[in-house]
């Protein structure tokens, strides 16, 4: 069974977000970029399934300009067997990404596609579900445990009210939540070996996908700051303030 893992290049999670002064967007010039943390978790799960002998091949795919090649190399160093780079703009909408991925799914016929549940830049949380819809596959979002059972996959999902366990037929789409696993770090020999692993490139045309724009980002702004608070010096002063000043206690 092949596992396909789509990967997004995003601003490094530890870098402070700066909004352009003209409100045109977030300033990414010279910023440190990285693999989206949820994509790392998705990839780790795929690699573990391969190490368990459940999967035969892990294929990483990323969509964007030349720079996404860096994240594909990282994916190869972390255990993907080969990778596919779909050359396109960096900021495609979720639906366009899902259409491109569907075309890759048709070519590769993976048993599972494991994605991050969302990217930490656009925070959309959409691509996995859209891909499942377009392929007509079942989906398990917010996965915290994945277990293969013959021709089924059992997934524990983190839902608002607790946990839910689902069984999906294959092929299936899974999106990874935080607690699915703790991704490994790439070791130097693996980074060297990754340089020899194949990276195929494709274009939307070659995949037979016409990209269409649905959304326009008119502006990006910083949220209004909270007005500065005060320090209180005792529990009784706190209760007094909450009662008489903030009026949030009876």
């Amino acid at each position, binding site marked *: 069974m092949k596992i396909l893992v789509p990967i997004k290049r995003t*601003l490094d999670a530890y870098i402070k*977000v700066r909004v352009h002064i003209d409100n045109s967007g*977030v300033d990414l010039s010279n910023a440190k970029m990285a693999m989206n943390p949820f994509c790392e978790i998705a990839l780790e799960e795929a690699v573990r399934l391969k190490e368990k002998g459940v999967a035969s091949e892990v294929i990483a795919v990323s969509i964007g300009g030349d720079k996404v090649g860096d994240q594909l190399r990282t994916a190869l160093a972390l255990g993907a067997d080969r990778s596919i780079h779909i050359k396109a703009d960096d900021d495609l909408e*979720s*639906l366009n990404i*899902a259409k491109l991925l569907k075309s890759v799914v048709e070519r590769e016929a993976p048993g599972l596609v494991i994605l991050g549940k969302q990217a*930490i*830049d656009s*925070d*959309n*949380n*959409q691509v996995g*579900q*859209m891909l*499942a*819809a*377009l392929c007509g*596959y*079942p*989906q398990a*979002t*917010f996965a*915290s445990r994945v277990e293969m059972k013959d021709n089924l996959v059992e997934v524990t*999902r*983190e*839902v*608002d*009210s*607790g*946990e*839910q*366990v*689902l*069984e999906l*037929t294959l092929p299936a789409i899974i999106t990874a939540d935080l607690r699915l696993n703790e991704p490994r770090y790439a070791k130097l020999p693996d980074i060297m070996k990754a340089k020899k692993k194949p990276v195929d490139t494709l274009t939307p045309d070659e995949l037979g996908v016409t990209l269409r*724009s*649905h*959304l*326009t*980002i*008119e502006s*990006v*702004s*910083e*949220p209004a700051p*909270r007005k500065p*608070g*005060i*320090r*209180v*010096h*005792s*529990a*009784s002063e*706190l*209760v007094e303030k*909450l009662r008489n000043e*903030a009026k*949030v*206690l009876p």
Partner: protein
Amino acid sequence: MKALVIAEHDNKTLNPATRSLVTAALQLADTVDVLVMGADCNPVAQSAAKTNGVAKVLLADNPACKHQLAEALTPAVLQVATGYSAILAASSTTGKNLLPRVAALLDVAQLSEVVRIEDKDTFTRPIYAGNALARVRSADPVKVITIRASSFEEAAVDGNAVIEPIAVSAVQQMSRFVSENLNNSARPQLEAAKTVVSGGRGLGSAENFALVENLADRLGAAIGASRAAVDAGYVGNELQVGQTGKIVAPDLYIAVGISGAIQHLAGMKESRIIVAINKDPEAPIFQVADYGLVGDLFEILPELEKLLA
């Protein structure tokens, strides 16, 4: 213009987030209908019908809809979608699971976690964990939107809409519900609570979390936790407040032993009054707190409990 609100519920009770969705939908359309999909969920439809501003409640009562699986609900939504210019769901795990699937099959974009409706085509939503706000214009004929319920007032409960049962084909073989492990706490629901007391790594252990629980019970509050506290196993993941957990905006949010990582702040900084209790005076949580108290939570919490008795 007509909008369709997808009710959030557990087959027994209507989640109040649905009433916030109605408020949002009324900013987009003159006529707002609510779609209730579930099994033996008539009480939910009754409750939805009382929401002010709702024209009609469509009730799809079908055993296949019981567990709100996206594979079952999507065809039901598509079946009734014709004629609506907007489809709204809560940005809950159920809404986030369902709506992208619906949008993809309608061949339209989906807008996630909308916090403000600027006009019928333009929406504001947080990006980068709330560190920036994007104003987005949609060119699609149908807007498919998840709404951050805490950003919209709940519609009043004095309506009297008609309930129209509909037959939907929701049977599917792709996914099957196996089991669930729910947090059956008697405390208020985290996202709907007026007061939230959250604990972080500063509590030190699952046993010590009782201090947070005691204070919460004194205040009639819901309990929350930081990611660090959840990862350390003090409480279940369903209590996590933050970018990847619940987004809350109560009248009063009390953060106990929480340092205030950006990830956590993204989930609570829209609260009306924020109180921070932490032994580290440099903790970032104090930057968003209206009232900061530096000190030992193991002394302060029992004292607060006594003062509030």
